[in-house]
C-alpha cells in the first residue's frame, strides 16, 4: 500500500506550488487537507506557509484539532515532517512580527527581523543563495536555493541548525531534529535543487 502524504491546507499562498512540486518530485498521491483526522493517519506531513508569522499561526490554530493532530502524529508517533518558509518558522517558540506570537515550540528559538549588516544589504532576503549543511543530514545537500523572507529563525540550540546561508549576516537555512525538518528556502521554487530535495524527503526514513 502506498504512503499517504498530507499537505496541510490553512490557506497558505504557496500551498498549490508545493503540491505541484511534490507531484513533480515523485509523490504518488498528495492529500491537500484541513482535516486533522487525515493528518493523524498520514505517513508524511508537510506544512507550507508564506507571509506573516502571526497570520499563518492564527490560520493554522483556527482549524479545530489540527495542532493536536500534528503533535500526536509527528512528535509522539514520529512520522516524517517538513515545514517550508513560514511553515518552518512556526516550529519556533515564538515569532516577533507585527507583535509577538506563540509558535509550535518544536524547535527552540525565536523568529525575528533580519538586521541588515550594512546599508547595501536589502531586506527582504530575496533570491538564490547557498544552502550550506552544518553536518551531514540525509535531506540536505550543499547547493543554491531560492529564499524570500524578511524574518529569520534565530535558533536556540546550535545542534538543531541543519544548514546555514549568508546575507551579510549568517542566517539559518534549515532546522530540525529526529523526524522533523524545516527549511527557510522554497524547494517548490528552487528548480532542480528543490525537486531533488523534495524527492529525498519523500524517500526519507528518519
Amino acid at each position, binding site marked *: 500500500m502506498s504512503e499517504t502524504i498530507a499537505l496541510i491546507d490553512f490557506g497558505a*499562498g*504557496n*500551498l*498549490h*506550488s508545493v503540491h*505541484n*512540486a511534490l507531484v*513533480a518530485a515523485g509523490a504518488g498521491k498528495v492529500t491537500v487537507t484541513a482535516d486533522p483526522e487525515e493528518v493523524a493517519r498520514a505517513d508524511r506531513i508537510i506544512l507550507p506557509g*508564506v*507571509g*506573516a508569522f502571526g*497570520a499563518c499561526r492564527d490560520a493554522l490554530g483556527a482549524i479545530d484539532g489540527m495542532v493536536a493532530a500534528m503533535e500526536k502524529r509527528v512528535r509522539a508517533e514520529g512520522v516524517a515532517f517538513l515545514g517550508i518558509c513560514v511553515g518552518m518558522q512556526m516550529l519556533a517558540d515564538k515569532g516577533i512580527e507585527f507583535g509577538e506570537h506563540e509558535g509550535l515550540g518544536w524547535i527552540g528559538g525565536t523568529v525575528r527581523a533580519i538586521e*541588515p549588516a550594512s*546599508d*547595501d544589504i*536589502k*531586506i*527582504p*532576503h*530575496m*533570491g*538564490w*543563495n*547557498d544552502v550550506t549543511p552544518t553536518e551531514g543530514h540525509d535531506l540536505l545537500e550543499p547547493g*543554491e536555493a*531560492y*529564499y*524570500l*523572507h*524578511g524574518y529569520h529563525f534565530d535558533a536556540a540550540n546550535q545542534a538543531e541548525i541543519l544548514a546555514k546561508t*549568508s*546575507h*551579510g549576516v549568517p542566517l539559518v537555512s534549515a532546522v530540525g531534529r529526529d523526524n522533523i525538518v524545516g527549511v527557510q528556502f*522554497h524547494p*517548490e*521554487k*528552487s*528548480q532542480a535543487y*528543490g*525537486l531533488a530535495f523534495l524527492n529525498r524527503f519523500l524517500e526519507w526514513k528518519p
Partner: protein
Amino acid sequence: MTVRIRVIPCLDVANGRVVKGVNFVDLQDAGDPVEQAQAYDAAGADELCFLDITASHENRDTIIDVVRRTAEVCFMPVTVGGGVRTADDARALLMAGADKVAVNSAAVSRPEVVSDIATRFGSQCMVASIDARQIEPGRWEIFTHGGRTPTGIDALEHAVRMAELGAGELLVTSMDRDGTRDGYDLDLTRTIADAVSIPVVASGGVGNLDHLVDGVTRGHANAVLAASIFHFGQHTIADAHTALRAANLPARR
C-alpha cells in the same frame, strides 16, 4: 557567498497569449505563455515576470489561468504585473501560484493598496512597479498607462513612499529607455536603489550583456530584467550569469 544577482526574463501577455515572445527554442505553440515559461525554467532563469498587458479588466481569469498552468510545470519564482488593482486581485494571482504581484497604476492613484497587500499577504510578495521618465537632469516623473500619461509625481518620492507603505521590492522601468536597447537609465536606477532598503529590479532598455552588469555595478540594482535579448536568442540566461560573474558579481552557476 551572498544572495545572487537575479536575472529575470519578462514575457508580455495579452489575452492569454505572449506578445513578442521567445523564439530561441522550438516551440509547439509560440504564443503559449506556459510553454515559454517552461523554456526559461529549463534555462535556469532566476525568476520569471509575466506582464499582463490585456486592456480590459474583465479578463482577469485569463491571466490567472496562465499563472495556474505555469505553476503546475515551472518550479521557479514568478512575478505577475499588469492590472492588479486590489488586494483581492493580488490574492487570486498568489493562490494560483504567483509568488509576487507587481502593482503599478493602482499604486499611483490609490497608494493604500500597497499596504493592503503587504498587510494581508506579506511585504515579500508586494512589488511596486514604477514607470518613470526623466524631466530634467537628476529628476524623473511617474508615468502611467504604458508611459503615456504624466502624473506630476516625483519618481524618487514615489519610490520611497512605496517602500514605506510596505512594498518588498521595486521594479524600476525607464520609459525613456524601454525598447531602445541603449541600456538601463543607470542614474534613475541608482538614485532609487540608494534611497530605499528593499531590493530594486532594473528594467527598460537592455541591448547587451554589459547593460545587465552596468545595472548592478553602476545602477546598484539587485536584479536585472530584460526581454528581447533573451527572447530572440541573442543571449542565454547562462550567458548573463557568466557575464555577471566575470564582473565579480554573485550569480548562479
